[in-house]
């Protein structure tokens, strides 16, 4: 299997789905002529032209809302937010219009839109540009939230997201765009709502989403090599829908769990998963489910300090050792 960059895996997904369905249109700031701020849409404007790949003004509420409106009439817009952080200026269009128009119309209207872009800290771009919105968005019934950690997942999930008839919030990561993974040449799809067991293990379950899943994998490797602890790593991939079964099955086996995420702690995804585990399999737990998150402050600029603000593999190892 060829090794492919995360950004190129996404690019392939767009290209394939644009070929498959003439209603798929890519939109966003700089996605066309500039090839995307992070080159995720590279070459697609040249290939598909201005009808299918569209540069927009810096008007996120305007163009995301436009995409929602167009999707109601059957267009399938794949909208780039140059940073997911910029969703803050389009928040109403996302949480009210995209998420709720189906409900408020009693099911008469669908909104098959994908909103995508990088959602992460760690690149020293400061507090305004480093938000993790996934817990907020997954709170909203009507939205789906996806956070792929590898090129393989990114491609398979993106293709599924584009075909999905509900609004999918697709969160990528600038730190992963240039990383490579094996991606098959033949077509494949990955369902939303299926977690991926990225490492099998027996002593503790590390659950994570997005780039934190890779941090968990590194931690699992260290735990195996240096501490003789066998950690299972579950990458949720999709936060809503959620693969609860995979989590419960694993924790029922290991009896211990830690959630790792790069977002802030208060009401994070880890809080949801941790309390869900307690509610469902309290008696299986040999220790409290713990959480590792970003240090609870706005994202700091300082490159040295920002490294410290986000969870590192050794933070995970340390936390595991505290309960194993």
């Amino acid at each position, binding site marked *: 299997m060829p090794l492919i960059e995360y950004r190129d895996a996404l690019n392939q997904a767009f290209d394939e789905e644009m070929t498959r369905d003439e209603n798929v249109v890519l939109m966003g700031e700089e996605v066309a002529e500039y090839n995307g701020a992070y080159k995720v849409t590279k070459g697609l404007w040249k290939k598909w032209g201005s009808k299918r790949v569209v540069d927009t*003004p810096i008007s996120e509420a305007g163009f995301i809302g436009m995409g929602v*409106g167009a999707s109601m009439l059957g267009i399938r817009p794949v909208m780039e937010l140059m940073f997911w952080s910029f969703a803050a200026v389009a928040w*109403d269009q996302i949480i009210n*219009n995209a998420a709720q128009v189906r409900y408020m*119309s*009693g099911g*008469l209207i669908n909104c098959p839109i994908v909103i995508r872009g990088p959602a992460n800290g760690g690149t020293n771009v400061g507090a305004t540009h480093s938000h993790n919105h996934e817990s907020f968005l997954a709170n909203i019934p009507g939205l789906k939230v996806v956070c792929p950690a590898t090129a393989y997942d990114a491609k398979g999930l993106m293709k599924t997201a584009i075909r*999905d008839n509900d609004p999918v919030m697709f969160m990528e990561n600038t730190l992963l765009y240039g990383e490579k993974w094996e991606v098959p040449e033949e077509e494949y799809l990955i369902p*939303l709502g299926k977690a991926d067991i990225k490492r099998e293990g027996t002593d503790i379950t590390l659950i994570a989403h997005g780039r934190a899943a890779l941090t968990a994998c590194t931690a699992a490797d260290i735990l195996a090599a240096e501490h003789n602890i066998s950690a299972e790593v579950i990458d949720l991939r999709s936060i809503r829908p*959620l693969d609860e079964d995979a989590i419960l099955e694993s924790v029922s086996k290991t009896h211990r769990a830690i959630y790792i995420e790069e977002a802030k702690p208060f009401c994070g995804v880890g809080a949801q998963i941790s309390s869900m585990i307690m509610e469902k399999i309290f008696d299986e737990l040999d220790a409290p489910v713990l959480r590792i998150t970003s240090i609870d402050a706005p994202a700091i600029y300082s490159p040295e300090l920002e490294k410290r603000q986000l969870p590192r593999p050794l933070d995970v190892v340390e936390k595991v050792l505290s309960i194993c």
Partner: protein
Amino acid sequence: MATAVTTTDFSKAPINAKLSTEQKLKLLTEMVRIRRFETESLRQYNGGKIGGFLHLYNGQESVAVGCVSLMGDDDHVITAYRDHGHALAVGMTMNECMAELYGKATGCSKGKGGSMHFFAPDKNYWGGHGIVAGQTPLGLGLGYALKYKGLKGAAMCFMGDGAVNQGCFYESLNIASLFEVPVVYIIENNGYSMGTSLARSSAFKSCLAERAEGFGMAWGKCNGTDIYEVRANVQEALARAHIESKPTLLEVSTYRYYGHSVADANHTGGYRQKDEIEFYKQNHDPIQHYKRRLIEEGVLTEEQYEQIDEAAKSEAAAAAQFADESPVAGEETITQDVYFEVDRQTEAGRTGKHFFND
């Protein structure tokens, strides 16, 4: 690029001159039906049958009816929360609308949307939106989709005079003008946003619509008293959309007789005087104006008018009865209509957990 229809007798405008008697009576009937529906829903609200907000359209009927009367197969409509008039004008039944107000399973949105959220996509009607100006980018998107699909249609997107101060509206104007999207924005300027008069909410030059000028967009202003005037002006904008694929911002002066919503007790003697309301009722009522006009034209008699009015009244009363007798949906429906895939139980809908109460 201010545009203005130059005739002052708007019955002479080609779009009106060619109206058949039947068509003219239909315009009148639709306006009367809206008024009677609104009055009936107010009565039922006061009787405790309806919850939440109720924003009545009385006084503004010429706008929805005039605009909708011009719609072809590929023209679409979207509006704000004051949405009953547009709903009836596009052909939604009083029954489904009234049942929605009652929160019943037979409502157009199965009781899920309520007064502010009526929809009928099969009639090219996309709601009914509660967040002020939140529908303006959606209207842009409808126009965008029409153009994308190569259809010769337009989206008419309605909004209030207070809504023009939401930022997303300007983002929409710029994109509409830049991308040449066939959308017609229609400001129903009834002089107030809740208790705030136009002068206290907006700074402008000659009128609100003129703000389009800075975006290189065509704009115009007309009076909503005369439905012919509305039609003549909107027709021009629709033609611009259909033929040139260009947007327009139109402002229509109109007036609402009731409060902002039925909860607004301040609207007579508070932020506006009773005289003012009376003045509008006497001099600017679109139904009375058109009734007189049609009698002058010889296509309507007083008796016919009474019949139309009576029929609308009974229709509204029957709708209230229908709504009253309709069932409330079961508790299990609360989590339906959230996700397409779950409702259809597709593979996607069956994979993973979508709801989190247990």
